[in-house]
């Protein structure tokens, strides 16, 4: 079944591409801005006026060639400091696919930015300098990708021109990284030897590395599968909004609007409403004005039920036979985002899907050092960019799934009730799928980041 309307004319042919959201991680020194600039430039996504602006700015700084890194450095503060301070979103397209790139800085204190960028990414590109190989920061990037359950990871071994395009240098780095990422539960790693500066294997195949027969970075981005089989997952439908026209034309219409968070819903399915526990049958499904028999994640839909139940924003519809166990006790792995630390005893708001409830931080059993995955028991608090385990108690039961099962219904935010700041990003359940995480020998006194 196709979801495109009125196929056949040129506009529709152009529109029939898929969308890949991906993130990059790596430091300024690894050449990340140059890689991104090269992807945009060589895929002909940089338009002439942008390139002119970059050339002008490069000349003003006394640089000979246009500095492709300038294509992606937006804010004045960054231009002055020569660093990237936040997640920037870039857009480009090839005839095969549309891309949304969350460009995240790799500077150590910006773990939270990589967590942010990775949270919506289907793929992460981790950049290393071929001269340095896998360093502490590389392990941190791999750990963030694993923690956020990014399905595909690409290792881009950059600056191959500076190691004589040597295959053995690349192979050693690729092997070390792949073993590490796999041990963290990353399902798929693809390693590509590149020179972002020279353009080798970014968009066009390299003339210097005939020993490498795999895809270029862009070819891989164009062909990696982006569609999952939603039939593998139980349906989860958080109600966003109740549509009740109450007009002469629709006197009794009551539609539950929302985006399917996971799985598939069909007309005739028996569903249970959480937290009330009442059940009904799906009477009609509507995908933005089109009645359908079946809908799947991540479609935005409207659901009508056979029975007149009291349902409002924040409720969750799930199949009557697929277990949702609402609970007031929640253990999670979190990344703390805010400059004010998170401490046991803090009273916060917790936003999960379309529901926001009061919550209490009961315990912070451990903090995780990303570089070597050691656990530090009883850290007392989590500072900005810290990753740790948190035990929460919520004011009302929440139907939270493990983050390993669903990035959408297993994730949540902690919010400061006083000023509304977003404090913490949370992932319910265990941190790494099959990692064998060592405990720290001694209490840790220094900085991890």
């Amino acid at each position: 079944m196709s979801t495109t309307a009125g196929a056949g004319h040129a506009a529709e042919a152009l529109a029939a591409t898929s969308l890949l959201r991906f993130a990059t991680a790596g430091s300024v020194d690894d050449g990340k801005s140059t890689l991104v600039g090269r992807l945009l430039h060589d895929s002909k996504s940089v338009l002439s006026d942008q390139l002119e602006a970059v050339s002008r700015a490069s000349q003003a700084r006394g640089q000979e060639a246009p500095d492709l890194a300038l294509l992606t450095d937006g804010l004045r503060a960054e231009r002055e400091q020569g660093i990237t301070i936040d997640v920037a979103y870039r857009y480009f397209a090839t005839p095969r696919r549309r891309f949304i790139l969350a460009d995240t800085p790799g500077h150590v204190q910006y773990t939270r930015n990589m967590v942010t960028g990775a949270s919506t990414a289907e793929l992460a590109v981790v950049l290393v300098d071929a001269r340095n190989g896998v360093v502490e920061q590389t392990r941190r990037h791999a750990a963030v990708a694993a923690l956020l359950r990014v399905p595909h990871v690409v290792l881009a071994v950059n600056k191959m021109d500076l190691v004589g395009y040597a295959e053995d240098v690349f192979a050693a780095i690729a092997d070390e990284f792949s073993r590490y990422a796999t041990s963290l539960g990353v399902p798929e790693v693809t390693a590509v030897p590149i020179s972002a500066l020279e353009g080798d294997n970014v968009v066009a195949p390299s003339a210097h590395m005939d020993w490498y027969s795999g895809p270029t970075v862009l070819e891989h981005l164009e062909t990696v599968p982006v569609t999952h089989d939603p039939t593998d997952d139980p349906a989860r439908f958080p109600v966003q909004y109740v549509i009740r026209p109450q007009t002469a034309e629709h006197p009794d219409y009551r539609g539950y609007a929302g985006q399917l968070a996971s799985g598939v819903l069909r007309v005739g399915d028996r569903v249970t409403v959480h937290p009330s526990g009442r059940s009904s049958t799906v009477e009609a499904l509507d995908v933005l004005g089109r009645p359908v028999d079946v809908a799947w994640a991540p479609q935005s839909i409207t659901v009508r039920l056979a029975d007149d139940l009291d349902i409002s924003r924040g409720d969750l519809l799930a199949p009557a036979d697929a277990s949702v166990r609402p609970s007031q006790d929640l253990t999670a792995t979190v990344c703390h985002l805010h400059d004010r630390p998170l401490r046991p005893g803090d009273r916060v708001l917790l936003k999960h899907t379309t529901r926001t409830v009061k919550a209490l931080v009961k315990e912070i059993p451990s903090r995780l050092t990303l570089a070597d995955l050691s656990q530090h028991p009883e850290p007392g608090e989590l500072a900005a960019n810290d990753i740790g385990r948190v035990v929460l108690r919520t004011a009302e039961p929440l139907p939270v799934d493990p983050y390993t099962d669903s990035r959408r219904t297993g994730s949540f935010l902690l919010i400061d009730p006083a000023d509304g700041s977003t404090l913490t990003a949370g992932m319910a359940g265990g941190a790494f799928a099959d990692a064998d995480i060592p405990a720290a020998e001694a209490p840790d006194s220094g900085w991890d980041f």
Partner: protein
Amino acid sequence: MTTAVSAPEETDNPFALTHLDALESEAVHIFREVAGEFERPVILFSGGKDSIVMLHLALKAFAPAPPPFGLLHVDTGHNFPEVLRFRDETVAEHGLRLFVASVQEYIDAGRLRERPDGTRNPLQTLPLLEALGEHRFDAVFGGGRRDEEKARAKERVFSLRDEFGGWDPRRQRPELWQLYNGRHAPGEHVRVFPLSNWTELDVWQYIAREEIALPSIYYAHHREVFSRSGMWLAPGEWGGPADGERVEQRLVRYRTVGDMSCTGAVDSDADTVEKVITEIAASRLTERGATRADDKLSEAAMEDRKREGYF
């Protein structure tokens, strides 16, 4: 880029979504989040293509009910008459409520002063902020896209503004997954950008797919124009042509629609949506770079204006 070949594994999958389906679903999700979490949202509506697409998405998001919010237009007094006509027809057709904040009224009352260069875009800030205060709007939908300009690449979908409308890049909240945090203090408001992840081409492809009507000036037409700062501008009471600027008849269309004083036309014979898409796909100039004088002011112009409370 003229035709697309989908990757085989995508088309074989019955659950594949095209990029337009994915972007549409995301934008609708954003509209519904705001409707569920805010007291008084409003859509900034200029009659330009991005605000027309926003309204189309809002109509879809709440059908068969009308969207639970009205439209706000900050009228600079330099709008194209075709666009104002289109605005009023759209409002009437869907039975919507339109609020207008008029820059001209502020100038007439002596509360704003005309700039020497005649451009009125920077004058929109005060009427906009006062309209937000007067009507207590707490969420304001804008058609801004992150692909438009480098400073916008870091904009959030939910962008927190203080009581002066100011945008502080360091105060913006991180946005994770699809969880948007719209909490704000009294007097603050949130600008919401449902088209954040769309590009100019996506917008046009969507206009084609959904058969959305636009003001006629987006398509090629004969018009009297004169050249200023490398742009074709339309003569009008706003202050053109000046001495020595020669008016000529050309076949042009507009890629963006702002003020007559700062929006340039491009030479084009694209008189249908398909021809426009073909032209854009082949174009080597970004949408704003080609046609908007207000973005050329300086490399950091947009960033400065956002801090002031303009978009």
